[in-house]
């Protein structure tokens, strides 16, 4: 990890954490070829994944997308490259938005939430998901929206409404949603 510590300001934190072996390898190769173009290296990797998208796993196409996105996020240590992950997230979100199979697939909603994390104001995205019935059976939809309403918008009434709505719809896992509501109420009482 000396490579990692020596470059700590050049690596963007990632919600899911980083694969340290891949990160160390990347930083080493950047140290050997400091002027190498990280964007074109990334785009080259993307082309390999793009070729796999329609061929690998045709019965469950989102599985390959999911792997592709995970790869892309690990690859994107700088914001210059992570800017390029956003259109991949958008494409994946758009591609399956009418696909009934994935309406309540946690993998699909997680990809939406990753997209949500990249925008300054995700209100429209949550409204879109609601209107199109995406992720409406999943606790993650309500907890994510409630958190944005609470932390970003300071709209506590609406945050409460969202959590309650999820519980009424018996979104899964329900206990996670109930716990989130309880925690939220504790914060409001302080």
């Amino acid at each position: 990890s000396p490579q990692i510590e020596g470059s700590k300001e050049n690596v963007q934190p990632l919600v899911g954490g980083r694969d340290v072996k891949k990160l160390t390898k990347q930083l080493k190769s950047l140290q050997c070829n400091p002027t190498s173009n990280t964007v074109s290296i990334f785009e080259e990797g993307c082309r390999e994944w793009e070729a796999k998208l329609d061929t690998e796993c045709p019965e469950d196409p989102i599985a390959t997308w999911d792997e592709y996105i995970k790869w892309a996020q690990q690859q994107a240590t700088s914001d210059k490259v992570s800017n390029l992950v956003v259109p991949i997230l958008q494409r994946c979100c758009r591609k399956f938005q009418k696909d009934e199979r994935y309406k309540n697939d946690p993998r699909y909603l997680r990809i939406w939430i990753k997209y949500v994390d990249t925008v300054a104001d995700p209100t429209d995205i949550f409204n879109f998901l609601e209107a199109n019935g995406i992720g409406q059976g999943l606790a993650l939809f309500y907890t994510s929206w409630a958190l944005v309403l609470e932390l970003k918008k300071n709209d506590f009434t609406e945050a409460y409404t969202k959590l309650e709505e999820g519980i009424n719809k018996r979104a899964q896992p329900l206990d996670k949603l109930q716990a989130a509501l309880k925690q939220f109420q504790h914060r409001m009482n302080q």
Partner: protein
Amino acid sequence: STLADSMGMGQTNKPHKILTLQADAPKPPEGHLNSQRVLYTQNKVSDMKKKVSMRYIPQAPEKILDAPELMDDYYLNLLDWSSTNILAVALSQTVYLWNASTGSIEELCTTQGEDDYITSVAWVQDGNYIGVGTNNQEVQIWDVGGMRQIRTMKGHRGRVSSLAWNSHILSSGSRDSSIIHHDVRIAQHVTARLEGAHTQEVCGLKWSCNGQQLASGGNDNILNVWDMGQTTPRHQICHHQAAVKALAWCPHQANLLASGGGTADRKICFWNTTTGALLQEVDTNSQVCSLMWSKHEKEILSSHGFTQNQLTLWKYPSMVKVAELTGHQSRVLHLACSPDGNTVVSGAADETLRFWKVFGNDSSKLDKSK
């Protein structure tokens, strides 16, 4: 080490018991939300502090220049504006000079080796010479009038990430964790080697406006303040929780220094460098890449990365936000100011330079002095 050898490394296989207190550790308060969240998302905690606008500040840059291959490396210092109105920018292997008066662009120099690149640039005060640091451990001096290299100064054992002039002294900070003072007039140019005060890359280096003190910041999270002529720091400040690259001496007050911290810190701190006292501290919620005082007002501009890539103008000492300028698509690594103090240029990892009329101008003050 001898201890490890004598003990053997098979520690974990030794027979052992795993013991823990019967009592549980206290739980966090009900409803506790991890405050580290701010590091990971664009949807960060809202900033409720109101911005106050005291005067008109254009929200858009007045000019944008392409800066292809500007390296996305936090630790480098690749942008500087001379007193003769020439902006120097290092793009990977080449230093370009943009004449802000005429708009002409010239190529000053290119590194020799295939994987070499420029790691820092700094103009001498009167603007005739420029110091150039490289990854192959060199400090070069270029005569800009003649567009030729005057000398190469060696001494570092790592890339030269930061440079700062104090009349004929050029100080250089390196990944080898040392700072060297070079007297550029003499053959034996190394007049002092400051070692041991930093343990990692020295990425921030600035002489105070009167040349009496030097501030250095490193990836070891340490800020050192040196008195001129000394080889141990007057103050060693271990306050930031991340690398210290952004440094700016206040032009209105000789012993006032601003420093900014990296990703794990995100704070701007103000120091009295005579006493070492912390005067003021503000959490910016994002990596601080660069700081620049206004020559006209008690205001300071900060540039940021991870995650909004914004420039923020603050009133000092209230630290009220005067303006927030967005537009860069990637983090804003460097700031430089025009000699008249009116225009700031920001260099970002999105490979553009943007010029902002953020500091207003000093015409009103000039009128008064007439």
